[in-house]
Structures are given as C-alpha cells and as structure tokens.
C-alpha cells in the first residue's frame, strides 16, 4: 500500500493513468481496477478520508430504485427469449421484407430492431436473431460476410431502441431523466435501422449475387404471419405506454414487462420451473456483472468530484481554445478509437462521468449527448479487434470460418453509424424532437 501511494505521488496524474492502463491491459477485473483507483486516489489526495463513506455510498446505490429497472428489464428479456417467439417473429418479418434486394438481410435488421424493443441487451439480440437466421445463409446462398455483418450490426440496436439498459445507466450516472432518454432513442433507432436497410439495398443493387435467393411469399402468408408480431408489439406498447401515459416510472414499467413476459410464456406453453431457473441464472449473472462495476464507478466519480479532476479537465480544454464543435468531433474520434479496444459497458461507465460535465458545460443537451454516446457504443460493439457482437456472431457459426469475415461484413454498418453521428450533430432534433413533445 505504501509503495502504491509513493508511486501515485511520484508523478501524478500520468502515473495514475499509466497504472490504470497497466491494470486494465493485464485483464484485472474492471470493477477492481476502478475500486482500487478510487482507494488509491483517496489515499493520495484526501488522506484516506473518503474511504469511510464507502460503505454508506455502496448501500445507497445498491438499493437505488431506478437501478432496479436493470434486473427487471433483463429478466423480462430472458423470459421472452425462452418464450419461443423469436423464430416465428423472424419468419413474419422475413415475409414482409424479403422481396427487397438483399432478401433476408433486411429481416435480420428489422427483427433485431423489434427484438431490441423487448430486450435491453445487444448481445442477447444478436445471439437470438443470429441463431435463428444463420442456417439461411447456406440454404439461400447469401454472401456470408455481409449477412453476418447485418446480424452483428442489427444486434447493436438493442442498446439504442428503448427500453435500453445502457440508457438507464447513462441516466443514472449523469442524473438525466430516463423517460426522456427512452423517448429520444426512438427516432434515431428507427433512422439507424433505415440506414442499415439502405446500405444493404445499395450493396445488393451493385452486387446482386450477394443477395441470395429470395423466398417466395404470398400475401396470404404475410397476413397469416401478422399475429406472430402482436406479442412483441403489445409488450413494447405496454411497457413504453405505461411510462409515457404517466402511469409508471421506468422501474414500475419494467416490473409490468416482467409479468407480461410471464403471461406470454404461459401462452406459448414454455413456462416451467426449469425455464425460470435458466432465466434467473442469466438475469442474476448479468445484473451482478453490471452492478459490481457501477458501484465502483459511482464511488470513483464521487472521489473525482472531491479532487476536482473534472474542473482541471475543463480548464485544460479551455486552454486549447477549441470550439464546442471541434471538441465534440475530438470526442467522437476518441470514442471510436477507444471503442475498438474496450468493452462498451466499462467504456461508458469510466468515461462518461468525466466527459459529461465538459459537454454540458459547452452547452450541449444532456439527453442528446446520451443518444450520441449510445450510437458510438454501438460502433464499439462491432469494430475489431474487440467487438462483443462480432464475437457473438462468430460464435453462432456452427460451420466455423474466419473471424475477419464477420468484421469485414460489419464495416458498411459502422460507416452508417458514423453517418448517424454526423446527422445527430448536424440535426440534434432527431433525438430531441420526441422528448420536447412530451416534457
């Protein structure tokens, strides 16, 4: 401990940044890195006074009512996942969209978008739709790379289209209204889906052989498949409606969603003790993973506030003499590069507390910035070498293949995300229009 203090004191703040990087790259659990960093900073700058608040601070966060929405939405998604509606939903969406050049790739994007609305997780979305869609590549002779890319990219919509666990976390750490963030996510979510469809369409018009054979679907089939879309849509309207109808808070709406998903599983006759055990295991595993990091990040934030790191950073940017737009562009580039190497959840929880006051200080809207960060995180999910969704999609390839196929196939979609970022900066109302109507 003494050596650690001496090390920190020797050449701060660079020594701190170096220590942080070494620990992170040595694959020390992120929560432990953040926790130890807080304790170290406290020892050096506050003579260990803040550690006394650690217990109370943790207890307060651990029972926070807003955060309860996280396990609730995860549980809802896990039950829906096991209710057996994914395959039927995918087929229904495919019936409506597969006449387009690019065929089922459009269905990948659209069913990811719909599924995203019932689940707060990108990984679950990509894994579910991917497992359902994968056999079609060989059956209908698609360009494998682009097809896999569309699943990886579509899966990222899960964190943008509400309910989104990442938006709840952003709202929590920046004290921004979660209902407003959810509303703000809708239009960018659909716009980004549309951009994805557009790039597939363009790619397949240039190279028709990429698009595979289109299935023949009659209008009768399409109409008959409609009821399969009702359960997910009902869930979305139920959950979102109860928030915006002023009936429920996000946590209460999530609880409603949990019960609704139980009813749905009962209706599809999938509800069983075994199924619930599986859902509980996943839910608690993911919740524990998220909460351990949040607690450490919140405590670090508390300490950074005391030390005044944010203030000195704002001063530093001020000295550079950058305009707000230049700073924003620098931030976007910073996030794109960081996102290539860092896991997204820890990326958001470690950077946003520092960056947020800076951005809001320059006059940007907190809700708008939340949406921008989420789109950048979506890019992080599908940019190599570290992109969780790329791994997930690689993992569903039962026939195997090179990881590069997936990474290459995802690139056009990264491009569309950058287009989305530019659109958001140029027209902030894309995100802010809906919240302004309600609040």
């Amino acid at each position, binding site marked *: 401990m003494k050596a650690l203090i001496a090390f920190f004191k020797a050449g701060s703040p660079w020594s701190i940044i170096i220590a942080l990087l070494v620990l992170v790259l040595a694959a020390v659990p992120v929560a432990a890195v953040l926790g130890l960093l807080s304790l170290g900073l406290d020892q050096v700058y506050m003579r260990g006074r803040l550690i006394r608040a650690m217990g109370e601070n943790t207890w307060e966060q651990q029972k926070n009512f807003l955060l309860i929405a996280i396990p*609730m939405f995860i549980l809802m998604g896990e039950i829906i996942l096991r209710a057996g509606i994914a395959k039927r939903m995918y087929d229904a969406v495919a019936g409506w969209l597969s006449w387009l050049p690019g065929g089922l790739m459009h269905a990948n994007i659209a069913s990811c978008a719909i599924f995203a609305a019932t689940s707060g997780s990108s990984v679950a979305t990509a894994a579910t739709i991917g497992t359902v869609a994968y056999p079609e590549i060989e059956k209908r002779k698609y360009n494998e790379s682009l097809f896999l890319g569309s699943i990886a990219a579509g899966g990222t919509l899960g964190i943008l289209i509400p309910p989104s666990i990442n938006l709840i976390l952003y709202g929590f750490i920046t004290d921004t209204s979660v209902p407003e963030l959810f509303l703000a996510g809708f239009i960018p979510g659909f716009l980004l889906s549309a951009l994805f469809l557009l790039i597939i369409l363009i790619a397949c018009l240039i190279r028709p052989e990429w698009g595979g054979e289109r299935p023949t679907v009659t209008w009768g089939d399409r109409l008959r498949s409609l009821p399969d879309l009702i359960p997910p849509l009902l869930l979305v309207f139920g959950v979102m409606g109860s928030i915006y109808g002023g009936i429920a808070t996000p946590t209460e709406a999530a609880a409603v969603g949990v019960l609704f998903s139980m009813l749905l599983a009962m209706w599809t006759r*999938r509800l069983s003790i075994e199924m619930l055990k599986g859902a509980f295991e996943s839910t608690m595993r993911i919740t524990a993973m998220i909460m351990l990091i949040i607690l450490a990040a919140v405590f670090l934030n508390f300490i950074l506030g005391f030390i005044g790191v944010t203030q000195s950073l704002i001063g530093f940017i001020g000295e550079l003499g950058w305009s707000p737009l230049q700073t924003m562009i620098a931030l976007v580039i910073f996030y794109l590069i960081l996102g290539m190497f860092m896991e997204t959840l820890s990326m958001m929880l470690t950077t946003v507390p520092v960056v947020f006051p800076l951005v809001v200080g320059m006059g940007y809207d907190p809700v708008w910035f939340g949406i921008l960060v989420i789109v950048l995180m979506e890019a992080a999910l599908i940019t190599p070498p570290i992109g969780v969704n790329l791994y997930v999609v690689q993992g569903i390839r039962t026939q195997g293949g090179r990881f590069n196929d997936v990474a290459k196939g995802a690139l056009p979609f990264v491009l569309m995300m950058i287009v989305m970022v530019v659109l958001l900066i140029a027209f902030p109302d894309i995100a802010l229009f809906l919240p302004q109507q309600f609040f």
Partner: protein
Amino acid sequence: MDFLDRIYRSLERISLFAAWMGGLSMLLAAVMIVIEVVGRKIGGLELFGVALPSFRVPGSDEYAGYVFAGATTWAYAYCLIHRSHIRIDALYNLFPLKVRAVLDVIGLALLGFYITILTERAWVVLLGSLEKGSRAATPQQTPLWFPQTVWVTGLTFFTIVTLFVCFYALICLVTGRTGQVQQIAGTMSVQEEVASETKGVLEMKK
C-alpha cells in the same frame, strides 16, 4: 487437491442456489410493484357502476430496493464462478496459457483485495445500524439491520469465494495445472459466452 475441488463444488452449488433465490425474489418484487401500480391507478375508477377499491402496498419501492440489494450481492459470487465479471482481454488473449494463468491469479488477488475492503466497510455500516438501532427514513421505519444483514452476508460470501478461488488457482498454477486455472479463473472463450447467451434459444428449439 481433491479436497480443494470439493470445496469449490460446494461453493458453486451455494452460489447457484443464491442466484435462483435472487431471481425468484426479483420476480416477487416485480409482482409487488405491479400490484402497487395497479392499485394506485384503479382506485376511484368505476367499472359497470361499481367503484373499484384503491389499494396500496405501502413501501413497495423501499422493499424492492432491499430485495435488489440482497439479490445482487448474493449473485456476485455466482458471477465470479461463471467468470462473468468484466475483464478487458484485448492483450490477454495474445499471451500464452501460462502467462494468462498468472494474470488470472493476479486479477483475482486484486479483486479480492478491493472486495475485502468494501466488505469491511459494509460491516461497519451494519454494526453501526445495530448499535444505533437505525431505521429507514420512510413511513415504514424499517429497522435497517435486517436488509443490511442480507447485504453484508452476501458481500462476505463473495469475498470468501473470491479469496478461495484465488488460492485454488494459485495452487493449480504452482503445481503446473495451467488448464485448471483457465477453467476456474480464465476469461470466457467466445464459444462459452455464446453458449450461455443462446442457451434459452436452444432450449426453445428442442
């Protein structure tokens, strides 16, 4: 070695049971919250000329918070045994197995160090509540020692599991059983991660 493995298996079973209980209690908390929301909304409404009763679940949000705190802390150990606590493995994956095993032990030791301090601070909070007879600043005036005991014991269990797995992994490392270290303390491979994510979907297909 056998002895350590037996302890590991029992800790695994306890943590799995804790995860089930945690999930179940979150589900029950959801039911409680929904009853509260419905009760709050239908009160005063009339259905076929009959006034609906307004019913409330006093303190449902407070109790849900306690359930959340207890369920989550008791799930930390489960998350650890499933090697699901987030680690950045960009560089890690490039190293040979032996180096990774060393990093696994170091990572666990640092996590154990942090968690031990956190747990110690949590005990201070609990003992303080017991001594002062602290109650929640809500109409329910819940005695805080009760939910805090669930919370602190969960954290303590997590600390014990972390330190034990660290010790076990260290023993495996020095006796040259690198593969075993990977199995109990390594990061999840892509295949394992996907298997755990798609489990539900595959169950569905059967």
